């Protein structure tokens, strides 16, 4: 699985950070998404899919390999 984020679409809801803090973080200044782990290990993938599904800005893309 490869994750990518689009900071321009991010509206800083923080839901991705709440869902998978190992993979996503937020900028201290404006809360915009920071991608920590673009290639998440198997045990985090289901949570990453949830984060992508609930992102209000549809800023998270998940490419399943």
């Amino acid at each position: 699985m490869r994750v990518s984020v689009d900071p321009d679409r991010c509206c800083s809801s923080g839901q991705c950070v709440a869902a998978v803090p190992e993979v996503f973080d937020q900028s201290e200044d404006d809360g915009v998404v920071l991608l920590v782990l673009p290639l998440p290990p198997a045990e985090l993938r289901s949570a990453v899919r949830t984060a992508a599904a609930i992102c209000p800005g549809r800023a998270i893309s998940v490419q399943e390999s």
Partner: protein
Amino acid sequence: MTTVEPIDAITFPAPRGGCPFAPPPAYQEALERPVSRISLWDGSHAWLVTRHEDVRAVMGDRRFSADARNAGFPFLSEGRRELAAESPSFIRMDDPEHARYRRMLTGDFIIKRVETLRPEVQRIVDDFLDRMTSHHPPADLVAEFALPVPSLVICMLLGVPYQDHDFFQERSRILLRNHSTAEQVRRARDELSAYLEELAERKAQDPDDRIISRLLARGDLTRSEVAAMSLLLLVAGHETTANMTALSTLALLRDPVQLARLRKDPTLIKGAVEELLRFLSIVQGGTVRVAVETAEIGGTTIAAGEGVICMLSTANRDGSVFASPDELDVGRDARRHVAFGFGVHQCLGQPLARLELQIALETLIRRLPGLRLAVPAEQIRYRTDAAVYGVEELPVAW
């Protein structure tokens, strides 16, 4: 002979049915159709969108504007039209104007920063609970706990003196009532704006490290812009969480099985709060938009200049997303709910709301094992006339 239900059968606001926690039956029946027509107080009509997928589609699509200055914008009441008329806050703007203001505040509501408030919020929750239980039952959980907790927290974050709470709570209640007249809303808004502009004036002279002072220190905002942003945060910051706290308590008291599950396993609290947000969906009028370009939703063409009401409460009971949607289940994964809206306008303060609700409900359940209603359930009065649903009072004993 059978009668055919006319297309324009739904009138806003539709009455609630037998269950005080369920959306009005007319909205729930609308889930059977992709979109419906709904008639508003001023005789105008809008599209009613009820399904989860369609609500997310509208809220995530820039062809649907939140800017009430656009022709055809649907107002849910006379007061709501008045509220949007002058110095609108950024919830009634589109990007990039909206994003400019919002990004000035997002740093204050990132998960990590909100999490640092946990000990302070816990202390506030414990304090109000101590005070409530220092006298003999019954107590009104709304006035003594559910309202003061988030009110004090948002005052602390903004730098607003909490001792003025009666002043702004009364006026924010007027702003959010469906039957408030334009005149009542204008007066309440003007008084609140004047109060916040005067406060900003004082903060400019004598700054602290709270949000109002920091907005002023940027140097690129006028006093009235700062007042408009503070007004939004102040009203949104306590009405919603206060009503969620009280209504959640009532829903749990009326569902002893779910309450017992939560009591037995406090680690369920985070998920339980998401489920309560879904199940109760207190923003009962939903969210409103106007099409600024022609768009298709659920197979229906919506023309530019037509209004849309996204019913969050029915989207949160859409059986294609949530199994047994009319059941409260504190163990389910309810995170796909749209109780905070969806798209670029999704609630800015949601991490704070979650923190407050988790702490308030967990503490209430843990500290008051004998918590119960102090009146028959039929006597409880609901806020059917307000933008944010809840209970007027919640008399409890323990």
